[in-house]
């Protein structure tokens, strides 16, 4: 027994010493960082941890390839127009653009730009590397609706684009990196060639993508020589990779990790609000899914939720109280048109009483022998993404006498099934603003007109043809003026949220990026796919 005891004690002591040495190393490193003058190292390699790999290397009639482009944008290719961190449209490969009625957009191409393979950027290469590519690969011609004869070269650096259908949202749609300009003739599913600040080096599916600085870049030269982005689907591994020093920057820091990372000396940079957490009510289906067809019940649900407590406690401060659903930045000065709901438990109870739902002996309301019980489907994009929010809402609803059950879906396909079966009363959703058009999400999800898709949400939460919401939103699809567009969308959102309570907003979401202190110049973008890397430096 004695030798075993001695071995156990020895091993324990070795582990303690080794652990202590590990701690000392880290402490001395951080001390050195604070003492030495930080100096950007232009030869540095930036190591980035992204989430799961979602690149496509094969095109189909409905999708183009997107290696290095979406959703992790390595800045290999560039778009004509840039989506700024404050929702502004900025010139990129197009120096300016103008609308020419009835349906043509004229782009003035930047001069002095070359692709990584040496081809010049001009109207002809933009036509071939963007608009003709979209028309050739995708049956719909992409979001901008490019056709085979849509693009006309006016002169060396000017081209006219006329979509196959009336499309006044072209500049806002062109900011999406999938609408980047690629070198004509290049196989960008295998080796993307663009004009960006970084050149493609290699891609290992489900592992990593590597790019290097483009020393001939037309704009600000990149501050690092190389970027290696590795895919870490597991958020814990991502965070630990940062703590271990394996990577310099991590995407999507979970709310519960923010305090811990900051306490250990890492920087957590938050973007502007670019996404939302909301519940979609099933407003127009027969029993047993008819409870929320009563607007008073919907409003009672909306009023029973204490959003400040939700943000402070459930999200640990990693959220905002915005209730515009469309990110407020996208609505500009009209964001205040959408009011949202104040917490008013007594008001909620009164609404339910007036709707005929009386408190039963067990504290749950009932009407004509039917219990007031809601089925809550959790949720899009995954149940995990919503964390404890559904449970929190459940407890708040209970306080006003509404019973509920939470159905956690295992994946996107299962969630979609609940949408098509219309078997939920409330659907937990997180949506992103990846497009610069404020009409993008309302058109995609809740509008019933022919201009957009409507999809699975239309039979549940969409107010429907002829509704005030549709009438308010309709002009937004043919409105060339961005300011008027924002007003039209804000009015429509006011209708569907404040007046109809069909969408019950919970909170605004910003994107959190974790990084070492040695990383400087990183500009957190509310859309992952719009992150720019040329400004980033690593200090030695």
């Amino acid at each position: 027994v004695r030798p075993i005891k001695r071995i156990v004690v020895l091993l324990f002591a070795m582990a303690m010493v080794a652990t202590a040495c590990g701690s000392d190393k880290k402490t001395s490193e951080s001390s050195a960082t604070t003492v030495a003058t930080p100096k950007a190292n232009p030869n540095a390699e930036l190591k980035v941890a992204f989430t799961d790999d979602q690149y496509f290397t094969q095109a189909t009639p409905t999708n183009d390839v997107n290696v290095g482009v979406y959703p992790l944008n390595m800045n290999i290719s560039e778009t004509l127009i840039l989506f700024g961190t404050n929702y502004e449209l900025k010139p990129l490969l197009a120096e300016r653009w103008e609308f020419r009625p009835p349906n043509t957009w004229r782009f003035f191409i930047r001069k002095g730009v070359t692709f990584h393979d040496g081809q010049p950027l001009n109207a002809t290469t933009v036509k071939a590397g963007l608009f003709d590519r979209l028309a050739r690969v995708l049956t719909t011609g992409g979001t901008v609706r490019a056709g085979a004869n849509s693009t006309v070269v006016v002169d060396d650096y000017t081209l006219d684009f006329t979509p196959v259908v009336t499309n006044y949202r072209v500049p806002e749609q062109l900011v999406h990196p999938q609408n980047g300009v690629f070198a004509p003739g290049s196989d960008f599913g295998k080796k993307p060639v663009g004009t960006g600040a970084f050149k493609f080096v290699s891609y290992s599916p489900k592992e990593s993508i590597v790019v290097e600085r483009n020393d001939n870049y037309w704009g600000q030269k990149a501050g690092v020589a190389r970027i290696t982005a590795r895919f870490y689907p597991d958020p814990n591994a991502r965070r630990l990779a940062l703590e271990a020093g394996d990577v310099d920057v991590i995407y999507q820091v979970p709310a519960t990790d923010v305090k811990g990372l900051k306490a250990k000396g890492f920087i957590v940079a938050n973007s502007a609000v670019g996404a939302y957490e909301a519940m979609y009510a099933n407003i127009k289906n027969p029993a047993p899914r008819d409870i929320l067809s009563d607007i008073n019940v919907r409003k009672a649900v909306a009023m029973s939720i204490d959003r400040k407590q939700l943000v402070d406690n459930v999200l640990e401060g990693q959220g905002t109280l915005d209730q515009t659903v469309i990110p407020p930045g996208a609505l500009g000065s009209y964001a205040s048109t959408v009011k949202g709901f104040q917490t008013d438990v007594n008001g909620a109870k009164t609404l339910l009483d007036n709707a005929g739902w009386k408190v039963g002996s067990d504290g749950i309301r009932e009407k004509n022998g039917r219990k007031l019980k809601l089925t809550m489907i959790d949720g899009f994009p995954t149940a995990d993404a919503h964390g404890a929010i559904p449970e929190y809402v459940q407890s708040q609803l209970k306080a006003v006498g509404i019973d509920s059950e939470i159905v956690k879906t295992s994946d996107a396909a299962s969630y979609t099934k609940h949408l098509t079966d219309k078997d939920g009363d409330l659907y937990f959703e997180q949506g992103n603003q990846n497009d610069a058009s404020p009409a993008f999400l309302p058109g995609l999800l809740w509008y019933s007109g022919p201009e957009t898709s409507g999809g699975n949400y239309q039979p549940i939460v969409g107010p429907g043809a002829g509704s005030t919401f549709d009438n308010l939103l309709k002009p937004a699809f043919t409105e060339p003026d961005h300011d008027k567009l924002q007003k039209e969308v804000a009015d429509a959102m006011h209708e569907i949220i404040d007046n109809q309570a069909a969408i019950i907003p919970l909170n605004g979401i910003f994107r959190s990026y974790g990084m070492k202190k040695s990383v400087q110049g990183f500009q957190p973008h509310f859309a992952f796919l719009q992150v720019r890397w040329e400004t980033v430096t690593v200090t030695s």
Partner: protein
Amino acid sequence: MRAYALRRVLLIVPTLIGISLLTFILVQFAPGDPAEQFAARSLARTPTKVEIDNARHYLGLDRPLPVQYVSWISDVLHGDLGRSYSTREPVSHELRRRVPYTLELAIPAALLALAIAIPAGIICAVKRNRLVDQVVRITSLAGASMPSFWLALILIIIFAVRLHLTPVAGRGSLRNFILPVVTLSFAPAATLTRFIRSAVLEALGSDYVTTARAKGVREALVVGRHALRNSLITVVTAFGTSLGHMFAGVAVIETIFVWPGVGKLLVDAIGQRDIPMIQAFILYIGVCFAVVNLLVDLSYAVIDPRVSLKKTSAAA
């Protein structure tokens, strides 16, 4: 023995067809529409009904189910496993690319598990109810019941974050193998230790061991030559099962350690309702288990001369 092996190999074919048919039927019951998932991923947005119908036609999912299955099995017999709905690449390419990643983890993990379990199991049996036996039994119980994701994170925190001895995740150098291999081997090592312990214990209590001891054979030879050899059938059976599971990949470990093996491939394929990929994966697993089981069965005859694989003996 050769005839037996041939018979078993031929039996694999109908077994795999049965498995594939069952998988095909089960996939149809999974909630969610593969065409809708395909269209949504392609468009990076909610598809319209027309877009979903187009996707269904493009994928051939608008054909009757029996036609779909016969078409698939006919392609498989011609060596074509189909195209993945999610990557658009031929499924066979994806499997060929991912299987080696799983094997490069599974084989060292299996060897490590054996290297730990055989001595640990023997020591426990020989030192029954002594301190070392108690410690190993508790450790193996903990190892068998510990969730692998938790063990993986603990190992990362200690060896990568605190001690900086290994990277957190990813492939590259030999150091990258340490944590995933140790994590993957932990549960099989624990299970095998318990199997070996009880098998050796049982053998140590048998008459031939008593006889050997009475003849004055050294204890090391008694354990090594008599007890262990007679326990090997149990050990090989348990090891074969563990090996099959390891070849199937462990999605949790592959996800945490960013290892692009087949385990994560299957989980992704299920989430995306990638039917060709799911079916090909199930076929791959079927082949793995069938081959491992065959090898295990054949090894019985080598380990124990009393076992005969001749048809007459088997019938007897």
